[in-house]
Protein backbone atom coordinates (compact mmCIF):
# COMPACT_ATOMS: atom_id res chain seq x y z
CA UNK A 1 0.00 0.00 0.00
CA UNK A 2 2.75 2.37 1.02
CA UNK A 3 4.70 1.45 -2.08
CA UNK A 4 1.66 2.14 -4.20
CA UNK A 5 1.22 5.64 -2.72
CA UNK A 6 4.85 6.44 -3.33
CA UNK A 7 4.58 5.36 -6.97
CA UNK A 8 1.45 7.39 -7.49
CA UNK A 9 3.07 10.50 -5.97
CA UNK A 10 6.07 10.03 -8.25
CA UNK A 11 3.77 9.60 -11.24
CA UNK A 12 1.85 12.76 -10.37
CA UNK A 13 5.07 14.74 -10.05
CA UNK A 14 6.27 13.41 -13.41
CA UNK A 15 2.94 14.30 -15.01
CA UNK A 16 3.08 17.83 -13.61
CA UNK A 17 6.67 18.21 -14.79
CA UNK A 18 5.67 17.13 -18.27
CA UNK A 19 2.99 19.85 -18.28
CA UNK A 20 5.57 22.56 -17.68
CA UNK A 21 6.06 23.12 -21.39
CA UNK A 22 2.34 23.79 -21.85
CA UNK A 23 0.89 27.28 -21.68
CA UNK A 24 -1.55 28.34 -19.01
CA UNK A 25 -3.91 29.91 -21.51
CA UNK A 26 -3.68 29.09 -25.23
CA UNK A 27 -5.49 32.36 -26.05
CA UNK A 28 -2.21 34.08 -25.21
CA UNK A 29 -0.96 32.96 -28.64
CA UNK A 30 -2.94 35.86 -30.13
CA UNK A 31 -0.24 38.42 -29.38
CA UNK A 32 2.60 36.08 -28.68
CA UNK A 33 5.76 36.53 -30.70
CA UNK A 34 8.80 34.35 -31.03
CA UNK A 35 12.38 35.06 -30.02
CA UNK A 36 13.11 37.63 -32.71
CA UNK A 37 12.32 41.26 -31.96
CA UNK A 38 9.96 43.17 -34.24
CA UNK A 39 12.94 45.04 -35.70
CA UNK A 40 14.87 41.83 -36.42
CA UNK A 41 11.80 40.23 -37.93
CA UNK A 42 11.23 43.16 -40.27
CA UNK A 43 14.83 43.04 -41.42
CA UNK A 44 14.61 39.31 -42.33
CA UNK A 45 11.24 39.70 -43.93
CA UNK A 46 11.67 42.88 -45.98
CA UNK A 47 13.60 43.99 -49.04
CA UNK A 48 13.57 47.04 -51.26
CA UNK A 49 13.54 46.91 -55.06
CA UNK A 50 14.51 49.71 -57.47
CA UNK A 51 11.24 49.77 -59.37
CA UNK A 52 7.89 51.51 -59.12
CA UNK A 53 5.91 48.98 -61.14
CA UNK A 54 3.77 47.53 -58.38
CA UNK A 55 1.52 45.42 -60.60
CA UNK A 56 4.49 43.81 -62.32
CA UNK A 57 6.13 43.18 -58.96
CA UNK A 58 2.98 41.52 -57.64
CA UNK A 59 2.80 39.35 -60.76
CA UNK A 60 6.43 38.37 -60.29
CA UNK A 61 5.78 37.53 -56.64
CA UNK A 62 2.89 35.29 -57.78
CA UNK A 63 5.09 33.58 -60.39
CA UNK A 64 7.87 33.07 -57.82
CA UNK A 65 5.46 31.56 -55.32
CA UNK A 66 4.24 29.21 -58.03
CA UNK A 67 7.82 28.22 -58.82
CA UNK A 68 8.26 27.42 -55.14
CA UNK A 69 5.22 25.14 -55.22
CA UNK A 70 2.67 27.45 -53.60
CA UNK A 71 -1.02 27.55 -54.34
CA UNK A 72 -2.10 31.17 -54.65
CA UNK A 73 -5.00 31.57 -52.27
CA UNK A 74 -5.56 35.34 -52.35
CA UNK A 75 -4.33 38.28 -54.36
CA UNK A 76 -5.27 41.95 -54.26
CA UNK A 77 -3.53 44.57 -56.32
CA UNK A 78 -5.19 47.58 -54.66
CA UNK A 79 -3.63 46.79 -51.31
CA UNK A 80 -0.74 44.82 -52.81
CA UNK A 81 -1.14 41.49 -51.02
CA UNK A 82 -0.59 37.94 -52.19
CA UNK A 83 -1.15 34.89 -49.96
CA UNK A 84 -0.58 31.26 -50.65
CA UNK A 85 0.01 27.87 -49.15
CA UNK A 86 2.51 25.18 -49.95
CA UNK A 87 1.35 21.67 -49.21
CA UNK A 88 4.24 19.46 -48.10
CA UNK A 89 2.59 17.24 -45.49
CA UNK A 90 4.14 17.99 -42.09
CA UNK A 91 6.30 20.78 -43.52
CA UNK A 92 3.43 22.66 -45.14
CA UNK A 93 3.71 26.44 -45.04
CA UNK A 94 1.49 29.50 -45.38
CA UNK A 95 2.84 32.76 -46.71
CA UNK A 96 1.74 36.36 -47.21
CA UNK A 97 3.69 38.83 -49.32
CA UNK A 98 2.92 42.54 -49.34
CA UNK A 99 4.18 45.06 -51.89
CA UNK A 100 3.96 48.78 -51.25
CA UNK A 101 5.57 52.01 -52.41
CA UNK A 102 8.61 52.99 -50.39
CA UNK A 103 9.42 56.24 -52.15
CA UNK A 104 9.26 57.69 -55.67
CA UNK A 105 11.74 55.20 -57.08
CA UNK A 106 11.46 52.10 -54.91
CA UNK A 107 9.06 49.43 -53.75
CA UNK A 108 9.04 47.67 -50.42
CA UNK A 109 8.34 43.92 -50.31
CA UNK A 110 7.63 42.07 -47.07
CA UNK A 111 7.10 38.34 -46.70
CA UNK A 112 5.81 36.45 -43.68
CA UNK A 113 5.77 32.70 -43.40
CA UNK A 114 4.03 30.31 -41.03
CA UNK A 115 5.14 26.71 -40.66
CA UNK A 116 4.68 24.04 -37.96
CA UNK A 117 2.11 26.25 -36.15
CA UNK A 118 4.70 29.00 -35.72
CA UNK A 119 5.82 32.18 -37.41
CA UNK A 120 9.06 31.43 -39.24
CA UNK A 121 11.91 33.47 -37.77
CA UNK A 122 14.77 31.90 -39.68
CA UNK A 123 16.51 34.59 -41.72
CA UNK A 124 17.85 31.95 -44.16
CA UNK A 125 14.35 30.85 -45.17
CA UNK A 126 13.35 34.42 -46.08
CA UNK A 127 16.67 34.85 -47.86
CA UNK A 128 15.80 31.82 -50.06
CA UNK A 129 12.57 33.53 -51.07
CA UNK A 130 14.24 36.83 -51.90
CA UNK A 131 16.95 35.05 -53.93
CA UNK A 132 14.22 33.42 -56.02
CA UNK A 133 12.34 36.73 -56.30
CA UNK A 134 15.47 38.66 -57.31
CA UNK A 135 16.08 36.22 -60.16
CA UNK A 136 12.53 36.55 -61.39
CA UNK A 137 12.53 40.36 -61.06
CA UNK A 138 15.94 40.75 -62.75
CA UNK A 139 16.56 43.25 -59.96
CA UNK A 140 18.67 43.30 -56.83
CA UNK A 141 16.86 43.04 -53.51
CA UNK A 142 18.26 45.64 -51.16
CA UNK A 143 18.26 45.17 -47.43
CA UNK A 144 16.05 47.74 -45.71
CA UNK A 145 18.11 50.32 -43.80
Amino acid at each position, binding site marked *: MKKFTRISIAATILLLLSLQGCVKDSKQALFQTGDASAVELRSFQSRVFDTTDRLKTLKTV*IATLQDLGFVIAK*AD*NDVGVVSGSKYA*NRHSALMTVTVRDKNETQLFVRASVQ*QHLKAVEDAAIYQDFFI*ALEKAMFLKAHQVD
Partner: protein
Amino acid sequence: MHITRQASKYILFLAIILFFSNSFAGGMINSASKNDKEDEILAADVLKLTSDSMSLRQMQTRKYEISDQGKVIQSAVGLLQDDGFIVEEINSDLGVILGSKNREAVESGQVAGAIIVAIIFGVSVPVDKEQKMNASIVVSQAPSDPTSSIVRVTFSRLVWNTANELSKAERLEDPEIYQIFFSKISKSLFLTEQQI
Protein backbone atom coordinates in the same frame (compact mmCIF):
# COMPACT_ATOMS: atom_id res chain seq x y z
CA MET B 1 -13.22 -34.44 -44.44
CA HIS B 2 -10.29 -33.43 -42.31
CA ILE B 3 -8.13 -32.83 -45.35
CA THR B 4 -10.82 -30.73 -47.02
CA ARG B 5 -11.13 -28.54 -43.98
CA GLN B 6 -7.41 -28.07 -43.80
CA ALA B 7 -7.25 -27.33 -47.51
CA SER B 8 -10.03 -24.80 -47.30
CA LYS B 9 -8.25 -23.09 -44.40
CA TYR B 10 -5.09 -23.06 -46.44
CA ILE B 11 -6.86 -21.54 -49.43
CA LEU B 12 -8.48 -18.89 -47.26
CA PHE B 13 -5.09 -18.03 -45.81
CA LEU B 14 -3.62 -17.83 -49.30
CA ALA B 15 -6.47 -15.62 -50.48
CA ILE B 16 -5.94 -13.25 -47.57
CA ILE B 17 -2.21 -13.10 -48.28
CA LEU B 18 -2.84 -12.41 -51.96
CA PHE B 19 -5.41 -9.75 -51.19
CA PHE B 20 -3.07 -8.25 -48.65
CA SER B 21 -0.09 -8.18 -50.97
CA ASN B 22 -2.03 -6.85 -53.92
CA SER B 23 -4.28 -4.13 -52.72
CA PHE B 24 -3.07 -3.32 -49.25
CA ALA B 25 0.68 -3.59 -49.65
CA GLY B 26 0.49 -2.06 -53.10
CA GLY B 27 -1.60 0.82 -51.89
CA MET B 28 0.48 1.34 -48.79
CA ILE B 29 3.77 1.20 -50.63
CA ASN B 30 2.50 3.66 -53.22
CA SER B 31 1.31 6.14 -50.64
CA ALA B 32 4.40 5.60 -48.50
CA SER B 33 6.78 6.33 -51.35
CA LYS B 34 4.68 9.34 -52.29
CA ASN B 35 4.84 10.61 -48.73
CA ASP B 36 8.57 10.08 -48.67
CA LYS B 37 8.87 12.11 -51.82
CA GLU B 38 6.87 14.95 -50.30
CA ASP B 39 8.78 14.69 -47.05
CA GLU B 40 12.06 14.98 -48.91
CA ILE B 41 11.49 18.69 -48.52
CA LEU B 42 13.31 19.65 -45.39
CA ALA B 43 11.49 22.09 -43.20
CA ALA B 44 14.16 24.72 -43.81
CA ASP B 45 14.03 24.29 -47.60
CA VAL B 46 10.42 25.31 -47.91
CA LEU B 47 11.23 28.46 -49.91
CA LYS B 48 14.20 27.12 -51.83
CA LEU B 49 14.09 26.65 -55.60
CA THR B 50 14.88 23.01 -56.36
CA SER B 51 16.34 21.33 -59.41
CA ASP B 52 12.89 20.21 -60.54
CA SER B 53 11.27 23.66 -60.10
CA MET B 54 11.84 24.45 -63.76
CA SER B 55 10.55 21.13 -65.10
CA LEU B 56 7.47 21.53 -62.92
CA ARG B 57 6.97 25.00 -64.33
CA GLN B 58 7.09 23.59 -67.85
CA MET B 59 4.61 20.87 -66.99
CA GLN B 60 2.22 23.35 -65.39
CA THR B 61 2.39 26.05 -68.07
CA ARG B 62 0.98 26.51 -71.57
CA LYS B 63 0.95 29.42 -73.97
CA TYR B 64 -2.17 30.33 -75.92
CA GLU B 65 -2.28 32.70 -78.85
CA ILE B 66 -4.92 34.95 -77.33
CA SER B 67 -4.13 38.49 -76.29
CA ASP B 68 -7.32 38.95 -74.25
CA GLN B 69 -6.50 37.63 -70.78
CA GLY B 70 -10.04 38.30 -69.60
CA LYS B 71 -11.24 35.73 -72.09
CA VAL B 72 -8.70 33.17 -70.89
CA ILE B 73 -9.79 33.77 -67.28
CA GLN B 74 -13.43 33.26 -68.26
CA SER B 75 -12.57 30.02 -70.01
CA ALA B 76 -10.60 28.78 -67.03
CA VAL B 77 -13.51 29.58 -64.69
CA GLY B 78 -15.87 27.79 -67.11
CA LEU B 79 -13.62 24.77 -67.04
CA LEU B 80 -13.44 24.77 -63.23
CA GLN B 81 -17.24 24.83 -63.14
CA ASP B 82 -17.39 21.98 -65.66
CA ASP B 83 -15.28 19.91 -63.29
CA GLY B 84 -17.33 20.80 -60.23
CA PHE B 85 -14.94 23.29 -58.65
CA ILE B 86 -16.18 26.24 -56.60
CA VAL B 87 -14.39 29.51 -57.31
CA GLU B 88 -12.99 30.70 -53.99
CA GLU B 89 -10.89 33.62 -55.10
CA ILE B 90 -10.47 35.60 -58.27
CA ASN B 91 -8.50 38.70 -59.20
CA SER B 92 -8.69 39.63 -62.84
CA ASP B 93 -5.95 42.30 -62.69
CA LEU B 94 -3.45 39.78 -61.39
CA GLY B 95 -4.98 36.90 -63.33
CA VAL B 96 -5.38 34.76 -60.22
CA ILE B 97 -8.11 32.12 -59.85
CA LEU B 98 -8.49 29.63 -57.00
CA GLY B 99 -10.99 26.82 -57.32
CA SER B 100 -11.66 24.04 -54.85
CA LYS B 101 -13.92 21.08 -54.35
CA ASN B 102 -14.60 18.70 -51.49
CA ARG B 103 -14.85 15.07 -52.48
CA GLU B 104 -14.68 11.59 -51.00
CA ALA B 105 -11.20 10.12 -50.65
CA VAL B 106 -11.96 6.50 -49.83
CA GLU B 107 -9.54 4.17 -51.61
CA SER B 108 -10.28 0.45 -51.92
CA GLY B 109 -6.68 -0.61 -51.18
CA GLN B 110 -6.57 1.33 -47.91
CA VAL B 111 -9.96 0.07 -46.79
CA ALA B 112 -9.00 -3.54 -47.57
CA GLY B 113 -5.78 -3.05 -45.62
CA ALA B 114 -7.66 -1.59 -42.64
CA ILE B 115 -10.11 -4.50 -42.65
CA ILE B 116 -7.28 -7.03 -42.67
CA VAL B 117 -5.43 -5.22 -39.89
CA ALA B 118 -8.68 -5.16 -37.91
CA ILE B 119 -9.14 -8.93 -38.39
CA ILE B 120 -5.57 -9.88 -37.56
CA PHE B 121 -4.68 -7.40 -34.83
CA GLY B 122 -8.13 -6.39 -33.67
CA VAL B 123 -7.40 -2.67 -33.93
CA SER B 124 -9.13 -0.15 -36.15
CA VAL B 125 -6.90 1.94 -38.37
CA PRO B 126 -8.20 5.24 -39.69
CA VAL B 127 -8.54 5.38 -43.47
CA ASP B 128 -8.77 8.40 -45.77
CA LYS B 129 -12.30 9.75 -45.91
CA GLU B 130 -12.53 13.25 -47.40
CA GLN B 131 -10.40 15.51 -49.49
CA LYS B 132 -10.30 19.14 -50.51
CA MET B 133 -8.82 19.53 -53.97
CA ASN B 134 -7.46 22.88 -55.07
CA ALA B 135 -6.76 24.25 -58.52
CA SER B 136 -4.72 27.42 -58.57
CA ILE B 137 -4.63 29.10 -61.99
CA VAL B 138 -2.64 32.17 -62.93
CA VAL B 139 -3.13 33.87 -66.30
CA SER B 140 -0.54 36.37 -67.47
CA GLN B 141 0.74 38.01 -70.62
CA ALA B 142 3.49 36.08 -72.35
CA PRO B 143 6.84 37.79 -71.77
CA SER B 144 7.87 39.79 -74.86
CA ASP B 145 4.77 38.65 -76.74
CA PRO B 146 1.64 40.73 -76.09
CA THR B 147 -0.40 38.63 -78.52
CA SER B 148 -0.23 35.53 -76.32
CA SER B 149 -1.30 34.54 -72.84
CA ILE B 150 0.38 32.17 -70.43
CA VAL B 151 -1.66 29.86 -68.21
CA ARG B 152 -0.06 28.16 -65.23
CA VAL B 153 -2.01 25.78 -63.06
CA THR B 154 -1.08 23.92 -59.88
CA PHE B 155 -3.19 21.21 -58.30
CA SER B 156 -2.99 20.17 -54.69
CA ARG B 157 -5.10 18.48 -52.07
CA LEU B 158 -5.71 18.05 -48.38
CA VAL B 159 -6.98 14.65 -47.19
CA TRP B 160 -8.71 13.87 -43.89
CA ASN B 161 -9.12 10.37 -42.49
CA THR B 162 -11.93 8.74 -40.53
CA ALA B 163 -10.36 10.03 -37.29
CA ASN B 164 -10.79 13.57 -38.75
CA GLU B 165 -7.03 14.02 -38.86
CA LEU B 166 -5.29 15.64 -41.79
CA SER B 167 -3.55 12.63 -43.33
CA LYS B 168 -2.12 14.25 -46.46
CA ALA B 169 -1.29 17.75 -47.64
CA GLU B 170 0.30 17.33 -51.01
CA ARG B 171 0.97 18.95 -54.32
CA LEU B 172 -0.32 16.88 -57.22
CA GLU B 173 2.48 16.51 -59.72
CA ASP B 174 1.45 13.73 -62.09
CA PRO B 175 2.05 14.92 -65.67
CA GLU B 176 -1.22 13.31 -66.86
CA ILE B 177 -3.30 15.59 -64.64
CA TYR B 178 -1.80 18.61 -66.34
CA GLN B 179 -2.14 17.16 -69.83
CA ILE B 180 -5.83 16.56 -69.22
CA PHE B 181 -6.29 20.05 -67.81
CA PHE B 182 -4.66 21.77 -70.77
CA SER B 183 -6.49 19.74 -73.37
CA LYS B 184 -9.72 20.69 -71.58
CA ILE B 185 -8.80 24.35 -71.42
CA SER B 186 -8.13 24.35 -75.15
CA LYS B 187 -11.65 23.08 -75.65
CA SER B 188 -13.02 25.53 -73.12
CA LEU B 189 -11.26 28.41 -74.89
CA PHE B 190 -12.87 27.29 -78.09
CA LEU B 191 -16.27 27.20 -76.39
CA THR B 192 -15.82 30.68 -74.96
CA GLU B 193 -14.74 31.96 -78.33
CA GLN B 194 -17.85 30.45 -79.91
CA GLN B 195 -20.12 31.87 -77.18
CA ILE B 196 -21.70 28.46 -76.50
